[in-house]
């Protein structure tokens, strides 16, 4: 376990390092110059040079790379062209918005998926089972931005039950973090994007749980529990489900990595002020420092979530031995 943890951490650091390097080269592949937007071509060549030197662009590539890394360690990702403020500061204000929506969505998916998948496996072949499969697969094949548009059109615009997009009513000012997320206004704004997200990602955990439950239901200990005359609910959740959980855990890491992409679309549709919307806006307005910061952040999220899922998996199933193969 210890050895596995150490190698896994090393791999994570390596992955992060390569990812950051990739990011460096990706943004230096830009046509022209990353500062073309702030340095006006109408300036005197001498002043252009001075500005370029300020951004560190007159130095050779390896020095730039070194500076880039040094600044990143100091949590300095440059200054956004559009906001005219440090990228780190802007990201700081948006991280929680994204993580809350994503985290709640994934948690809901897991809970509904595990509980529902268990029942579906228990009553396999029934109308409930096949109905749920079709329902969840239909939502899975619907692009998330389209279902979001339809949900907004129906519940937000036609029925006017919920506000259309954004996180708070315009003009709302929060006194503190607690106030920002724990109030009715936020909840009202949260419901539509959260349900879109949950419906979209539900199929994964639901079907994986169902399949792995089917395998467990054949096991002797389940038969024994039934023969003992235990209540079906008790057999389902107390005996069988906990043995069928592992594949769902594995799925989590994959889902997080996909959901970061879904998050971009979801936030665009619902004008949710998070990192996903930020990266789209940044790219559309050629705000490269901001785009780079957002991209780095999203990648780091995926990498660390993958790591967490791996560790959790190893912790939950001691039968699996890593590093001895």
């Amino acid at each position, binding site marked *: 376990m210890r050895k596995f943890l150490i190698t896994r951490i090393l*791999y994570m650091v*390596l*992955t*992060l390092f*390569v*990812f950051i390097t*990739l990011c460096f080269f*990706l*943004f230096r*592949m*830009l*046509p022209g110059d990353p500062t073309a937007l702030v340095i006006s071509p109408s300036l005197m060549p001498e002043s252009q040079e001075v500005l370029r030197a300020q951004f560190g662009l007159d130095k050779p590539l390896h020095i730039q790379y070194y500076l880039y890394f040094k600044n990143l360690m100091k949590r300095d990702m440059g200054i956004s062209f559009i906001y005219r403020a440090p990228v780190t500061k802007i990201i700081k204000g948006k991280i929680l918005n994204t993580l809350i929506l994503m985290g709640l969505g994934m948690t809901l998916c897991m809970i509904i998926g595990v509980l529902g998948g268990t029942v579906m496996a228990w009553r*396999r072949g029934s109308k409930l089972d096949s109905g749920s499969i079709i329902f969840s*697969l*239909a939502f*899975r*094949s*619907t*692009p*998330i*931005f*389209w279902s979001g*548009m*339809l949900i*907004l*059109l129906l519940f*937000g*615009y036609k029925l006017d039950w919920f506000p*259309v*997009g954004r996180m708070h009513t315009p003009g709302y000012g929060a006194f503190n973090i607690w106030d920002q997320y724990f109030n009715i206004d936020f909840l009202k704004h949260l419901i539509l994007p959260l349900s879109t997200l949950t419906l979209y990602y539900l199929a994964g955990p639901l079907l994986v749980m169902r*399949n792995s439950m*089917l395998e467990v239901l054949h096991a002797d200990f389940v038969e024994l529990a039934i023969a003992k005359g235990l209540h079906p609910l008790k057999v389902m959740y107390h005996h069988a489900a906990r043995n069928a959980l592992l594949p769902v855990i594995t799925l989590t890491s994959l889902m997080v*990595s*996909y959901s*970061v*992409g*879904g998050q*971009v*679309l979801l936030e*665009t*549709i619902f004008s949710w002020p998070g990192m*996903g919307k930020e*990266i*789209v806006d940044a*790219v*559309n307005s*050629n705000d490269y420092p901001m*785009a*780079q910061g*957002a*991209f780095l952040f*999203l*990648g780091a*999220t*995926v*990498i660390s979530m*993958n790591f967490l899922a791996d560790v959790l998996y190893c912790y939950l199933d001691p039968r699996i031995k890593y590093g001895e193969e």
Partner: protein
Amino acid sequence: MVHLKCGYWKRDSLNKPRTGRMAHAQPYFKAIWDQIGIVWEDTLGRIGMILLFFFILLALFGPFIAPYGAYEKCWTPDGKLERMQSPSWRHPMGTTYYGRDVLSQVILGTRQVVIVGFVSALMVVVVGTNIGLVCGYYKGNVDNLLMRLTDIVYGIPFLPFAIVLISIIGKGVSSIIIAIVLILWRSTSRVIRSQVLSLRERPFVLAVKVSGASDFRVIYKHIAPNILPMAFLYASFAIAWAVAAEASISFLGLGDPNTISWGQILFYAFLTQGVTSPYWWIIPPGVCIMLLVMSAFFIGRAYEKVANPQLRER
């Protein structure tokens, strides 16, 4: 497992000596044909194949069917722009804010989606399979290096990467395909690798090796036909994935501005109308994306069921 069902042409081919230039390709053709037959046997798989075939036809002959051009503005006889018309005989799916015919846009938009879906799926499977074959066959350092690379690619979130990449290398169909292929090969290569790891220890591979076949020959003539079913399965999932990815990228406004696609129709709807978009404008392209993704899913699932008999009993 998969190879039980799909390895039978090997026995067959022992009796029939093959000659001619195409002889080496024969196991591949036959294998691919077999896979299609397998899918056809399943009801859902058949529906998927029919849907897919329908969309391919639409992509091929779209320009002959569509009543108007994709970006053509429609005018009433008295010279008014037909803006936001609800469905009528003249425009079965209504018109957009710019006075364009939605039906024609949907028909003409099929082509880009199908091209992106198929080309990127093909490239993904070719790249992924080859990496998997090399990793699984040679093991050791090569395997280690390439699998670390796969892990790293697993850490890159697709859509943000695609957005950044396309904003850097420019909009266009090829940029979308490049973005998809650069990310998607990871899952295929991982699965193929684990298959090859077990295949390379089998007696028939050992026998061929003993008789002095080169690595290249062992990999591509003897191992590769056996992992084709898996590659086929991942190809169908890759189509579903690529279609959804193309729609997402176009929806964000990063598609080729000169070629229409379903995602782009939705992009314009959301750009001009936001949440108040009329239903006739946003429902048809969305349904098309859904059906195409579903058809590829159906094919994959049908195929998985037969390839993996354990699933069938349920």
